[in-house]
């Protein structure tokens, strides 16, 4: 699996991070805001947000002294990482399979 796909999968593979993404669907939130709705510590929420940011799933903006996190405006950007890697892998495998079996039949 490609690096980007692995990061995206890892990011959404954790239930708390998925809960963060669900909360962000309602609009941009600060770390403190999010932490107040999650059963984990504020530093833990920060860590989760860093991972989501590194995976390209959320954006981070500064509002005064707060960092606001938001979902990437194009939700498909997240899927694109995964889909791109998936199809690169799949097509590479397809060529080997098709040419091996095709030539075997010839």
């Amino acid at each position, binding site marked *: *699996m490609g690096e980007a796909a692995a990061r995206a*999968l890892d990011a*959404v*593979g954790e*239930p708390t991070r*998925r*809960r963060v*993404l*669900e909360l962000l*669907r309602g609009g941009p939130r600060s770390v403190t805001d999010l932490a107040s709705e999650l059963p984990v510590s504020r530093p833990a929420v920060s860590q989760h947000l860093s991972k989501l940011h590194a995976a390209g799933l959320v954006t981070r903006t500064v509002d005064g002294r707060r960092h606001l996190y938001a*979902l990437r*405006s*194009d*939700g*498909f*950007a*997240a*899927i*694109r990482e*995964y*889909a*791109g890697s*998936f*199809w*690169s*892998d*799949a*097509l*590479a*495998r*397809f*060529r*080997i*399979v*098709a*040419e091996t*079996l*095709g*030539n075997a039949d010839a």
Partner: protein
Amino acid sequence: MPDDRVVRDVEVALGGGAAFAAWHEQIHLWWPPTHRLAGEASSRMVFEPREGGRILERAVDGREFEWGRVQIWEPPYRIVHTWLPGGPSDTPTSVEVVFSPAGEGRTLVRVTHSTGQLGREGWDRAKVRFDHGWTALLRGFAHHTQREVPS
């Protein structure tokens, strides 16, 4: 390149008819073993080769997981199907596979994976992209990791 789709292609040393046939007949061999919903690498991918046919994963114990449904079936040129790993049918993305000649005995296979559904008019594209992308991602990966998704 529009940002609402992913395009990947590969050239294979087969004529178009053979490449098209290999695509749906050999899916159990080329579909990456790391992308399975059944929680075991030994599940088998199945491609039902007709309009309305399913692309599904069948576990050893008989459980089935639907990855998509064929919307357009045009051998040996084109296949269009939805992509909704384990998710509800109202949040699919679309995959188009086109087989075109690339010289004697060679075929270019191009996959375009895009958000939304082909042929539907009048959608607010930004909202569809946002909602469908996120819903598909969250539901798809929740099923992929076999965890609960809040509804």
